[in-house]
Every structure is written in C-alpha cells, then in structure tokens.
C-alpha cells in the first residue's frame, strides 16, 4: 500500500526531558520522524516539553508546542490543531504512555484522531507483562516463570514457590525504574514495596531469574503488508541481570550459529505478528542458556527505542525515519535505501565491522547511592565505536568514554577483584582488564562474571598486547588493528603518544577510513558515514570544497548533554546555509549529530587528540569548531591548535584565559568588574589558608569541568580538607578554585553573541534558586522578573566589556550574582552554553547559526537579517519562558536530593506563559513535579526567611491552603495571625513532618536550609518528599515562584502556543534563512 492520502495533519508526541532511560535517542527518532513526514507533504504538529531538542526547532514541524506532555495540554493542542492522526511510537515510553492515555480518556475519539504506528491493543499486549506472557505462550515461545503482584504478600508466596534470586519489574515505568534483583526475603520486600509505589498501576512483575544467560536483542521492522526485516542483532557482553541500557553491547551477535540465530529471528517475527504490531520498529529481547541453548523471550517494545537508535547508527539503517514512513502506509519495498540509493529499504543490513556500545555512569554525583548495576537503568549516556574487529571497536569505545581519569590515576585494589567481577558495576570491565593484567585466566574471570569466554578472550588478548607490543612496522600495525591507542602503545615503551604517532607515521602506519554502508560493500555507498581502521584502502574521498570540522560532545553526562549536541547540529545546518561543507566528529549513538543526514560527512570516532588528528590529516578542513561541544572539544583545542589545526571562532588561548584564575582575575581588575574574593590552591594546606583568608562559606571546585563536577560549598575548614583530598583524582594537575560564596544572592545567566566589536545579548536569565545552586540545576526565567534597571544595565555593560576583552568570536556565557545591588561576575565561558537552545527557542533567534556565521568571519552587522536587525542590546521576548531541571533522584534511593553547586539534573523542560506564574507552573508540570491546587503547605524556614515566609503563607491561605510549620516558623506565622498547625521536626518526636508526608497530609513542603546545621533533618524531609512525590522547595525564591505558579493554575485557563505563532508576532523570525531542513 502506498502513502495514505486520507491523512493530512499528523501529531507527533515527543519524549519530554532527558531522564535516565530516556535520553536524546528520542530526539534523534522524533527529528527523523518530523523530517520524514514533512518531506512527504504532511502537515506536522509536535508536542514536546524539552526545549533542548532539535525536534522542537521551529523548522522541523509546522506547529511546535513546547508544552507539558499531559492529557490536558495535549488535548488542548489537539483541539486547536485537529490532527488526523497521532504517531505514538517515536517518543519513547513517555510518548507511548501519553498516547495510551489520550486514547483511553476518549480524547482521540472525540476529535477523530487515528493512532498510527502502534494500535492501542498492540501496545497493551506488549506492555502489560501478563498479557505479553500469555501471548508468547500461545505461540510456543517460552518466557521466564513469573507472577504479577499487587501486594507484598503475593510476592512472598511466589518466592516460596520459585526460590531466589528473583527479578522484580514494576509495570509501566521508564528504564525499569523501581526494578531490582532480590536474593532474599528482605530485599524482596524492599524492592516490592518501592515498585508497587512507583508503578502507575501499582503492579510489579516477579520473575524467575535467568541471571547469567546470554542476552540478545533484535531490532525488527514490519510494514502494513506484513513484510518484516531484522535490522540488527545485538549481543550483550554482560549476561542477563544487567539492564540492557547498562550493558556493554556488541553488534552483530557474535556467538550464535546460523541455526540458532534464525531460531531467534523466527521467534522475533512471530512475536511481532502475535502482538499485532502493524507497522514500524520494535525491539525484542531474548535470553539463551549457554549450557543447552534454551531460549526465552524477555520483553518487546512496540516502538523505536534506545536500542533502535543504536542499531540505526550501527548499521546505517534509519529505523525511526522508516518507521514514520511505514506508519503512513508505505511498504518497506517502496522506500529506497538512503545509502546505496539503488536498493530498497526492504532488506536486512549486513555489516563488515564490529560495533561496541559502552554505557557511561555517574555514581560519583550521587554520594550514598551504591554503584551496583541491576535491572534498573542507571547510566546517563553511552558511547559507540566501530572497528573492523571486536578488539579494535572495544579499544575505541573505551577511549570514547572520557572518564576523566587519566590512565596513570587508574588505581585498582587487587583484593576487590572478586567483588568487582561478581556483582555488575561500572568498574567491572576495568577490573576484568586489571585481573588479566595481573595474570588471571579467562576461565577464572568467566566463573565469576558469567561473561562469554569469546568476549573475555578478546579482552585478554588486547590487554596482553599492551605489554608486548613491538615498535616495528608489523608490531604497530597489529597494535593499531587491535585497537590500541598511541598512548597505550607508548606506555609500554615509556614514549609519549606524540612520539608513537610520529614513529608510526614515519613507518607508514596511518589510519584509513571505511564506510558504513548497510551492505558490507556489496553496493556503492553514496553517504560518507565513516569510521577509522588500519586497513589498506581509504574510502573517505574528501572533497576540495571549503569545509569545517565540528567536534561533538561525546557521551551524554550530567552537565554535558543534549544542549551541546543541539549546538553541534546547528553548526552543521548553519555551515550548509553558508555554503560550507560540514564534517561532524562524535561518538555518541543517541544523538542527532551522529545521524548521517545532519552533516555532509560524519566521522563516528572517539573525541581524542589521536583520532581527531587522523581525521584532520585526511580531510584537511579549513577550520575546526570547538566551542559547541562542551568541555570535550575544549580540552582538545590547544593541542589541536599546536598540531596545526585551524580553530575558528574565539581563540583557544582566550577560552583558556577565562579558566585561568590568575589571568582572569587580572582581566577583571583591569576592566573594573567585581567578582567574589577568590584564590587558587594545589595542596590541602594552601586551600585551607586561602579559605581562611576569604572567610567562610567558600565555594571550592576544580578548573576545567562542566556541570560543577566535584564542586562544593564549604562552611568550615574540615570540609575544605576533605574536599581537597578527593579532588586530586579529577583535577588533572590543574589547581582548585576557591571563591567566597555569596549567600542569598540572585544568580543570572547571560548568553551573548560577539564579533569582537559588536556584542548582542541573546538572553538574560534570572535564576529562581539563589546563587549556590548550580546554574544547570536552577530553574530560570526569560525575561528577568525581579532585577532592577541598574543591575540589568551593569550586566549589559560587563558582558560587552568581557566579550571584547576576550576577543570572543561566536558565543559567550557569563554567570553573574547580584547581592545587595552589586553585580558580581562568577564565571565566563566564551563558548556555547547549556542555555543556548532554550534562549534560541524563547527568542526565536537561531543563536548557533549566527555564531557559526561569526566564526566564518562575518560580522553581526552582516548577519543582521538573522537577529531581527539587532547588533547590540538585548534580544526581546514576547512571553515568559521558564526552564526547569529534571532530576534522577528516584533512581538513586538513599541520595540526598538537596540542590547544591554540583549539577545533578539530567534534563530540562520549558514552560511558556503570559505571566511568570503560568510559565513556571507549566515547567513544574513538565518536570514531573506538579504543584498542588489545594491541601496543606508545610513551612520550615531559617531566620533570614521568616519575614518573607509570612507574606507567602498569607497568599497560600488566601488561595484556600492550610498551613503547617515547624515550631520556630509556626510561632512567627501565628504571631502574624495565620492559622497554623505545629509539626515536629524529624528529630523532635512523632508524628513529625515525614510521617505527615507519608500519610499524604502534606501537599507542598517549603524548607529552606540553615547553613550546615540541622543537616540530617533536612535530608530526611527532602528524601521522603521525593519518595512520597510531594514537591519540596528548598529556597525562598523558589517558594515565591511556587505561589505565583499556583495562583496562575487557579486563575488561567489551560492554554498553549506554538513556537511558530509566538515568533511570527515579531519581525524576528521573518528573516530566518530557511535552509536547515532538507
């Protein structure tokens, strides 16, 4: 059946903020779907609350709604836009769940919207674990024995029958949230209680353990005619027991014969048919007993997934794009293969290389969380690498991870080897490698890990080679073909990476590039999607056009996520607009930047000096952009420049200058810009001395990190001492920065564009939380709501001065703190920042595009048509735009969710409103922390905030809320004549605030910190608030915002605006050059 002409308008549901288990792979899939449907002539409507996505760019869909992904707001969008169909399968679990809710609440029927992609019956059959098991049993496929439990008792009974260990999976949660493995009764009860609570339907599936079995995934596509293909097979390095998102995975499957593989393929296709997936992509997971080959089907997802993004990047087959086309009626054989052009998409990709994915974890950001892996996903990002062999791919993947630990700092405790091998954890592979290094055998490691001996043998051979590599031509070829870096080769011979590089180049051992072509070279590839190898022939075929290389941001991690990928993608789009060839370098399979459609040429490579120079040697680009990919490319900027790579935009030396405390301090003095008193230190004693001199509290942090990694506020010398002892691990020989911490200051983020002469301020964002909370973790608002004209003028003045002084060409981000009317500079980053996509969406001005123009040598004056005619001053906004962070605390039970200088949010949402309150209310709703409309508000504030608390409490009472408060706060409120219930603090007696939260008697908690005191009480309250899902506000400015938001929710109707209509009002978007979407 060809394209459906009965559909005209299609609504696409996005996946919302980046959270663990649902990251930017859904921006990739949603973007592909938007582009594919739009290219096919459909009118597309998009709803997604995440402003940092490419898919919410106004050029992608015709009508883009950055609005909460709830039934009430989605209905409003449907009411306005009247789509004919809703595509439910490209927005992850969130998109699928919202689609199901819209169907179940009758919204789709009411407005005559057809669900396309997956039908409601199919979704339910796949998602409801019992229905799924019954369906599989019906077609003869085995599943592990299991039972659905709604009570702890039912679970205990099942455990008695089956025995331990047991796998627990709550129904309908993201990335297996709340799941776990129980080895005994105690753990069973703990996980079960949590799971029943977290599951929206109050159900947990308890399952027979297939721990240690081999785990596989197949990515399947099916069209309306029933044609079905397997796009990719994936084998997990980690056997069953580790969530597939937390597993190291390999494509294609390595240890199955054809018979066994085809058995799995038959089962996957039978599963799809039985579930009733009519069109699109699905992911089916299997476990195989390595002893006798018994196979069970573990689960299936009737939508594009994290694995399908990986499979797309691994094979060059764009699953989401094809899925969108299948959903509107096309058959697989009616869609051409993008890469070969001549053959159809109806085939099974075959690859002549090996792909390795390794997840990236950040347990260090969550002290108190046990770094153990299980059925609940914990990783925040991943890398993928391709090599001609598994060893080569594994070596590249390990380098792509950028763990921040230098090889010399990698320390292992031999006594820990058994523990680190038995229980899956982030350090398992490093420990396996270490065990081999000190003489363990494959069999010994296999016994403890259950990892397939084929993989272990490969790992061991690579480890062995590190110490035996010979420095002649044959030896170097072997080492490079087995994935060793120049640095690793050098370590065995006390040579530097540079020396090894020079040596091997003199011997003619240089990287070449092979193409990812879906067909193992059977057909010609017309798409330059490349990976490096040490084979004999280079297929890069560089052009002689003017070209620029964009260095991406590597694996997602907290503080360096999708926002930077957004900038890199825009750099590619912008280069195309300016007629320059774009060359993308990145190793993150989840992203839009690693879609071969995004840039002219894509190099899927680790972002290391060695690999980037290999690309440079081959391509000889006219410039390299390092200011868009976050810290990763910045760390490479100076070495690249020294190696002769022309860096365009702000000079790396000036980017560096802003990080160098001494030079930067001098610059601020020269410019007469105030900054908090500060100093630097390289030793514990020095740090204490500096802190004493500045006066407590102080903010201590390492230089050269993003996301406030290892950043802390110290109220005393002990904290400084403790901090310094740990900090050396991550500081990479650079000094620690110590600043006087400004308590209760208002923090402001500024993004600006500069051509060194003119400076245009794109946005002045006022933080809702006070200074001290990491800027990435603070909600902020555009335009600022409480800053005085004088402060705003100072901010403008300083920003212009700084941009000129640092010769900024492109983007710059400055953080200010305003205390008692004085504006202090906290930090200057002459590069693209986390807020660039948000500001771009709010202003309707494409900041990265203009920045690329500036880097190519144009002036703001010359780019005026892109900026609404402005070359100075501040860009206007026509509504209120609030950005709010989203936190992963529910994945890390036991962790204190208090906000601080260390960034811990994984994603962000944006709320749009006519008032600050409306925008903030929407943002909170989108962030999954909706504010209550009624009930009881609990106040416990420190003395500084008591006066303001009275004013806020009055407004709550006016809105019909009841009040509760801790003793001190209650007496102040009573004195002001407010009715208030006095509640014990946690350590004062019972029932206390935590008890009331658990009993659902408190709907909102306002709890401001009192410095370093009453710490345990605060922690208990905050942690329980997360568990009881009671919004907990820890700053007085946050409380102020909450009052505004609740007021708006009670006053304003549910209303939505598309970005296109917001920006069509002003002249701003008229002048946009329309070249980003093809």
């Amino acid at each position, binding site marked *: 059946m060809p394209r459906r002409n009965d559909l005209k308008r299609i609504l696409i549901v996005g996946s919302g903020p980046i959270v663990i288990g649902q990251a930017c792979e859904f921006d990739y899939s949603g973007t592909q779907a938007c582009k594919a449907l739009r290219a096919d002539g459909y009118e597309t409507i998009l709803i997604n609350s995440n402003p940092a996505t490419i898919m919410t760019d106004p050029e992608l869909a015709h009508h883009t709604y950055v609005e909460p992904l709830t039934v009430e707001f989605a209905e409003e969008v449907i009411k306005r836009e009247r789509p004919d169909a809703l595509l439910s399968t490209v927005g992850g679990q969130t998109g699928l769940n919202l689609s199901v809710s819209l169907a179940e609440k009758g919204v789709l029927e009411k407005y005559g919207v057809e669900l396309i992609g997956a039908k409601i019956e199919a979704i339910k059959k796949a998602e409801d674990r019992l229905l799924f098991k019954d369906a599989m049993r019906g077609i003869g496929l085995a599943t592990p024995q299991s039972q659905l439990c709604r009570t702890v008792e039912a679970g205990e009974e099942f455990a008695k029958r089956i025995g331990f260990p047991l796998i627990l999976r709550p129904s309908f949660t993201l990335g297996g949230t709340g799941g776990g493995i129980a080895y005994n009764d105690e753990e069973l009860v703990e996980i079960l209680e949590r799971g029943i609570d977290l599951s929206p339907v109050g159900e947990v599936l308890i399952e027979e353990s297939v721990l240690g079995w081999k785990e596989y995934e197949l990515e399947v596509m099916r069209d309306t005619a029933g044609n079905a293909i397997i796009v990719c097979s994936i084998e997990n390095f980690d056997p069953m027991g580790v969530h597939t998102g937390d597993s190291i995975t390999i494509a294609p499957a390595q240890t199955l*014969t054809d*018979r066994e593989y085809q058995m799995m393929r*038959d089962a996957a296709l039978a599963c799809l048919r039985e579930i009733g997936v009519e069109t699109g992509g699905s992911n089916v997971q299997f476990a195989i007993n390595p002893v006798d*080959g*018994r196979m069970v089907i573990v689960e299936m997802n009737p939508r594009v997934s994290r694995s399908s993004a990986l499979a797309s990047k691994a094979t060059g087959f764009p699953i989401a794009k094809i899925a969108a086309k299948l959903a509107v009626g096309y058959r697989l*054989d009616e869609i051409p293969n993008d890469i070969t052009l001549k053959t159809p998409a*109806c085939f099974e*990709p075959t690859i002549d290389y090996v792909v390795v994915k390794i997840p990236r974890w950040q347990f260090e950001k969550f002290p108190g969380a046990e770094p153990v892996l299980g059925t609940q996903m914990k990783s925040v990002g991943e890398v993928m690498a391709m090599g001609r062999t598994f060893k080569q791919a594994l070596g590249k993947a390990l380098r792509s991870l950028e763990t921040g630990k230098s090889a010399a700092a990698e320390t292992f405790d031999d006594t820990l080897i058994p523990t680190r091998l038995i229980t899956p954890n982030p350090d398992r592979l490093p420990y396996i490698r270490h065990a081999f290094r000190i003489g363990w055998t494959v069999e010994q490691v296999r016994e403890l890990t259950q990892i397939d001996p084929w993989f272990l043998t490969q790992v061991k051979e690579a480890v062995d080679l590190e110490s035996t590599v010979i420095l002649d031509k044959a030896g170097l070829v072997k080492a490079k073909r087995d994935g060793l870096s120049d640095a690793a080769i050098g370590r065995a011979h006390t040579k530097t990476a540079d020396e090894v590089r020079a040596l091997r180049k003199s011997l003619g051992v240089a990287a070449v590039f092979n193409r990812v072509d879906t067909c193992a070279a059977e057909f010609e590839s017309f798409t330059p999607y490349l990976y490096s190898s040490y084979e004999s022939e280079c297929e890069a075929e560089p052009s002689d056009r003017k070209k620029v290389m964009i260095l991406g941001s590597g694996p997602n991690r907290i503080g360096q996520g999708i926002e930077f990928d957004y900038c890199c993608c825009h750099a590619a789009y912008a280069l195309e607009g300016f007629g320059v060839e774009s060359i993308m370098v990145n190793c993150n399979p989840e992203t839009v930047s690693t879609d071969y459609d995004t840039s002219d040429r894509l190099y899927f490579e680790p972002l290391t000096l060695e690999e980037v120079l290999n690309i440079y040697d081959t391509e000889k680009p006219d410039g390299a952009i390092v200011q868009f990919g976050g810290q990763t490319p910045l760390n490479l900027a100076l070495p690249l420049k020294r190696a002769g790579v022309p860096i365009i935009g702000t000079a790396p030396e000036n980017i560096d200058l802003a990080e160098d405390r001494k030079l930067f301090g001098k610059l601020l003095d020269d410019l007469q810009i105030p900054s908090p008193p500060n100093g630097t230190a390289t030793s514990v004693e020095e740090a204490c001395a500096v802190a004493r001199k500045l006066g407590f509290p102080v903010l201590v942090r390492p230089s050269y990190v993003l996301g406030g990694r290892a950043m802390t506020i110290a109220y005393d010398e002990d904290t400084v001492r403790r901090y310094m002892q740990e900090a050396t691990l991550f500081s990479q020989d650079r000094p620690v920065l110590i600043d006087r911490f400004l308590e209760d200051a208002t923090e402001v983020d500024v993004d600006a564009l500069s051509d060194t002469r003119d400076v245009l301020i794109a946005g002045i964002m006022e933080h809702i939380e006070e200074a001290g909370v990491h800027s990435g973790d603070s909600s902020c608002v555009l335009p600022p709501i409480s800053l005085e004209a004088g402060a705003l003028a100072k901010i403008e003045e300083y920003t212009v001065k700084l941009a000129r002084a640092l010769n900024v060409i492109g983007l710059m981000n400055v953080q200010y703190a305003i205390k008692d009317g004085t504006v202090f500079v906290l930090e200057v980053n002459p590069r693209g920042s986390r807020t660039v996509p948000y500001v771009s969406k709010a202003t309707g001005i494409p900041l990265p595009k203009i920045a690329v123009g500036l880097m190519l040598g144009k002036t703001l004056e010359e780019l005026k048509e892109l900026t609404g005619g402005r070359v100075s001053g501040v860009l206007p906004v026509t509504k209120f735009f609030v950005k709010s962070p989203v936190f992963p605390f529910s994945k890390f039970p036991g962790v204190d969710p208090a906000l601080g200088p260390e960034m811990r949010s994984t994603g962000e949402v944006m709320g749009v409103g006519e008032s600050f309150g409306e925008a903030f209310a929407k943002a909170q709703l989108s962030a999954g922390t909706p504010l209550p409309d009624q009930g009881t508000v609990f106040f416990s504030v420190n003395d500084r905030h008591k006066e303001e608390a009275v004013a806020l409490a009055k407004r709550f009472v006016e809105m019909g809320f009841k009040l509760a408060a801790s003793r001190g706060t209650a007496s102040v409120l009573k004195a002001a004549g407010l009715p208030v219930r006095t509640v014990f603090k946690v350590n004062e007696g019972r029932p206390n605030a935590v008890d009331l939260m658990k009993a659902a008697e408190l709907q909102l908690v306002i709890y401001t910190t009192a410095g370093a005191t009453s710490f345990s009480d605060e922690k208990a309250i905050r942690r329980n608030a997360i568990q009881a899902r009671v919004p907990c506000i820890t700053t007085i400015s946050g409380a102020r915002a909450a009052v505004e938001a609740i007021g708006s929710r009670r006053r304003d109707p549910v209303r939505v605006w598309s970005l296109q209509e917001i920006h069509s009002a002003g002249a701003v978007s008229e002048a946009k050059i329309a070249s980003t979407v093809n």
Partner: protein
Amino acid sequence: MHNPPKRARIHNLNPAILALEDGSVFTGQAFGAASIRTGEVVFNTSLTGYQEIFTDPSYAGQIVVLTNPQIGNYGTNPEDSQSKPWIEGLITRELSPLVSNWRSEQDAGAFLSAAGIPIGSAMDTRTLVRRLRMRGVMRGCLSTLVEKGGGDPDELVARARKSPSMAGLDLATRVSAKDRYTWDEPVPRCSPSDLLDDPAPKRFRVAAYDFGMKRDILRQLAHRGCSLTVVPAGTSAEDVLALKPDGVFLSNGPGDPEPLDYQAAQVRKLIGKTPVFGICLGHQVLGLALGGKTYKLKFGHRGGNHPVLNKRTNKVEITAQNHGFAVDPDTLNASDVDLTHVNLNDQTLEGIAHRRYPVFSVQYHPEAAPGPHDSHYLFDEFVAMMEAK
C-alpha cells in the same frame, strides 16, 4: 555447568597470500591446511553460517571471502554441515582463536584443515570485496605455503591467471553423488526452544537430482513427509520416472549451468509428467529446459539478506542466495513461463513457474542454511503440488 572454553590450536603464524588475476595481492596470516589453491574468488555477506558455506557444494571451485570479519567464534558442529567442505579456500578478516557455543565440537580452522583447505586470515577483506564488486569476480590463488617456496606474488598471480574460468565449467557432475542414495532425516532441533513442527509422516516419494545437493534441502523435504531418493547428475529422465516418484527435485550446485544440456534435456522430458521443483542451479537447469538462456553476473549474489518479491502474493521475502549465473527472463517464452519472483536489489529473475504444469523453481535458497526462513513455504507448495496430483 559450562563446557570449558575450547581454544583452537594455532598451527602457525605463517603469512598467507591471496593473488588475483588482475595482479592485486593481499597478505595475511595462514591458517587451515598448508597448501596452494586456485579458484574463482567470490564474497558472501552473511553474518552467520560460515560452516554451511564451507560445506555447500555450490562453492566448489571457489575461494570464499566472508565479509563478516569475525569468523570461527562458534566453532563447528556435526548437524550444520551441508555436505563435506567444498570451498577451495577461505579468506577472512579474523579467524577466532577461541570457540564458544554449546553445540560446537571442532574449531573452524581444524575443520577446514582436516579437509585440506587453506585459510587466509587477517586480510583486508573490505578492500578485496570492493575490488570484486567494481571489477567483477576474478580468479585467484591462495597460498599458505609462503615460507615454503609458495610466496612469490608474481608466480601466484600467474597461477591465478592459468586456472580455469568458471564460465563453461561443468562442476555439477564433479560434485554430484556417484551413486543414488535415500534420505529420510528431518530437520534436527538446535535447541530445546526451537519452534519446529514435528516431522510429518512419510507420504511422498521424491526423486532428487544431485547437482551439488545441500543437506538442509533434503531435511526440509523429509520433514514434510517426503522419502527421498537422491540420484546422480547424469541420471536419465526414464530412470527417474522408473522410481515412480510423486515429484522430482532439482538441486542447487556449482559452476556454469550452460554445459548442463544433458540435464536440461532430461528435465524437459519430466515437465508435465510429474511435479518438478528446482533450487538455484536446479532453477537454471529448468530455465534451460524451458528454452531459456543463462548469463554470468558481475559478482553474483551471495548472502542472506536479498529481498525477493513474490509477484503472486506481492510479499517480500528476505532470502539466502548463492549464485554467479542467472536465467535471462527475456529468453523465456511468456506463454509457457510465469516470472514469479524478482530480486528487488537488481531486478534479476528469482523464480519461475510453468503456466500449465506443476513445475516451478527459484534462484535463491528457500532451505536457507544459512539464512532467513522466510521462504520455507516453497517446500509446502511443492508438497501441495504432489498432493494435488
């Protein structure tokens, strides 16, 4: 609970050389038998199933390049062989030193070595395949005797050039069984979870021409209730009909179909007398019998991912393929022959059926082994034809 991992014996780390008739020379490491062999160098893009490829008689006379770079990982086992190893040589990117699979009994290197077949490993197979794709398949010479006087590239190139060309070569007769034999074994299970139907009781007698028969074809037919008598390639139609078969099967096989005019003549005599089903070379022989002509493809179809459209059902099946020649559809008489299947990659002919008689064939391999099982239905159709007779 596990079998201890089996480590292959690495016989040597001697160099290996593959020389092509165009003068290209590829070097790597020698495994398998120490030998010098010539053959047509062809590539197969399957991700799985190297053992079935080694033992497919259709590869007689050919040095096989596998595009999947990791070969040997799961060893070899007795069930998966399609015959004995037939390839002249194996070229791979990396032969695994270690075997990991519950069914494995012997590593791939030893398996080929025992059959006297050399292996060139650590070769740049992608560059080699790109060359074959661009210039077409070529004759080549693989030496694993480089350090024993077999290492002069010029001499190896010369040997490649002197070796016989595939065009015009009757290899089917060479690989065919010399005596007839019977076959009744169904498809074995590879795992307790294999979704196989139970074998049907024996209902039909099938005479099967062996032009280079793969065992899984016999198993598929036996599984569906066929008792098979496999006859040598030179058997006359009269002798076949004397077996009173319910149907006749024409097997796959190596080489150029054109010299098989005797076989085509026999098949011509069978049309209309009994249901006939042909696969691969069997399809080409049927094509010749129906008056068609065959031609050589530039680099053939060898792999497990070829999309074929069944024009009768309008459905696409992903097929296993292994052929260097094809039937030219324009040479077939449209009033007799229906073109039932077409390859969606290059529009070549993939299947034909007689318009009046129960006679049909496909160019690809419905038995797969290795490859997807999408086309098993063709065996059912053959059985249905015999049932309807």
